[in-house]
């Protein structure tokens, strides 16, 4: 995006309610000064972060009061995970880890403005539509700016050889059809991960029959509450290994992720809840590595094994028919679908003990009954 495109204000914006508010009310600066440099003195590029109450909150207090504690705004679970794995015995080391986290991880937060007015800072900003406020931003420019590497590619079928999510492909649904404003703006205080947010999307919101006590499809009755929906209906997704971050000679932040693989792995549910009672869930390896911050400090993540590196996942490439659900025995007895000890590197064994599927827990093969006759 060229610089002028990023900062061009459409004249039509001036006729909107937001456009009628003087620029300086939100951004400071001197509106009467024709000198570019002095006029921009004290300018606030994104007045919606870190305190949206003073700008958006003046009129939208009902939204900002919760949105300022939302997952996108605070990225709180990110920090919790890194802190759990960090070396907490040495305060000097912990400080370095916190600095590196702030530079490389926490910088990806999204403020009100970075969703509804501009593209996120992570992709160097720029107005979405000449400063016109977008109630429902375009997923291709907004969501994909930060979630383009994995989720967006899965959802839209950008991973060669892997189909797009049926919701996108057949129904032309966008991210916001499931991830509504209610979820995006929800208060996530104390929430350990996005999967624990009460406002998160649930398959049964649109498919209530599937989880009912008497579903139309027998396979749904058999597997009800035992396996997560994605275990049968998702396909291979992107897994990352070996991530390192640092700063180059020009002081630009970089990351090195040397291994990415398309995998489909079923594991044991690491955290059963009332909403998520399943024995089996889909797992994904995120770009987690104990040497992640070695550029800044050695031994920064000395408690790395406190959390599994194969994490609960909900791939966004849902299909009605998948390689594993075509027949019962495409899954039952098919050990390669399950995360086993041999799939986990030596240093990760301890961390993933709770999610690795032991031989005894791999479902036994059944008499061959093709599910296609049941569907």
């Amino acid at each position, binding site marked *: 995006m060229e*610089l002028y495109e990023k900062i061009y204000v459409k004249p039509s914006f001036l006729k909107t309610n937001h456009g009628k508010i003087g620029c300086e009310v939100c951004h400071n600066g001197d509106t009467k000064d024709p000198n570019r440099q002095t006029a921009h003195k004290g300018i606030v590029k994104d007045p919606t972060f870190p305190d949206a109450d003073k700008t958006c909150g003046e009129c939208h207090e009902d939204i900002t009061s919760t949105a300022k504690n939302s997952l996108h705004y605070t990225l709180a679970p990110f920090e919790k995970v890194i802190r759990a794995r960090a070396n907490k015995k040495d305060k000097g080391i912990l400080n370095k880890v916190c600095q590196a986290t702030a530079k490389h991880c926490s910088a990806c937060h999204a403020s009100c403005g970075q969703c509804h007015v501009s593209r996120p800072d992570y992709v160097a900003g720029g107005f979405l539509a000449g400063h016109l406020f977008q109630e429902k931003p375009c997923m291709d420019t907004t969501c994909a700016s930060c979630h383009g590497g994995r989720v967006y590619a899965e959802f839209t079928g950008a991973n060669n050889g892997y189909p797009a999510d049926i919701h996108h492909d057949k129904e032309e649904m966008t991210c916001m059809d499931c991830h509504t404003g209610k979820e995006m703006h929800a208060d996530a205080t104390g929430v350990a991960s996005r999967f624990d947010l009460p406002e998160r999307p649930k398959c049964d919101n649109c498919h209530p029959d599937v989880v009912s006590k008497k579903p139309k499809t027998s396979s749904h009755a058999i597997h009800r509450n035992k396996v997560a929906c994605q275990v049968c209906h998702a396909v291979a997704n992107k897994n990352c290994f070996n991530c390192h971050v640092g700063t180059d000679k020009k002081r630009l932040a970089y990351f090195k992720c040397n291994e990415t693989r398309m995998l489909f792995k079923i594991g044991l549910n690491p955290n059963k809840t009332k909403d998520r009672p399943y024995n089996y869930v889909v797992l994904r390896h995120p770009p987690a590595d104990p040497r992640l911050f070695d550029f800044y400090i050695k031994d920064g993540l000395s408690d790395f094994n406190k959390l599994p590196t194969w994490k609960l996942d909900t791939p966004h490439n849902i299909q009605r028919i998948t390689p594993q659900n075509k027949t019962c025995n495409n899954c039952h007895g098919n050990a390669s679908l399950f995360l086993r000890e041999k799939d986990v590197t030596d240093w990760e064994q301890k961390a993933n003990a709770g999610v690795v599927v032991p031989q005894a827990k791999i479902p036994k093969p059944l008499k061959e009954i093709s599910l296609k006759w049941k569907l």
Partner: protein
Amino acid sequence: MKILLKKKGHRAGLIIILAIAPFFGPVRGYAKAETAEAKSECITCHTDVNKLIRLGWEIEKIRPKPGKSAETSGEG
């Protein structure tokens, strides 16, 4: 007599103008203030594509785009 009447009418007109002039004063002043308020240098500049393009070139000469680190590798 005609001349006298003409002179008297002229004077009356002048008196009327002088009498109502103070009421126009503040109104005209307010109108001026409103124009100044509406004229924002931010808007003048940020809605002018040609100006922004030229400005962009100037800025990039002094401060090139930061871009991404050449050391970044793999998928993020």
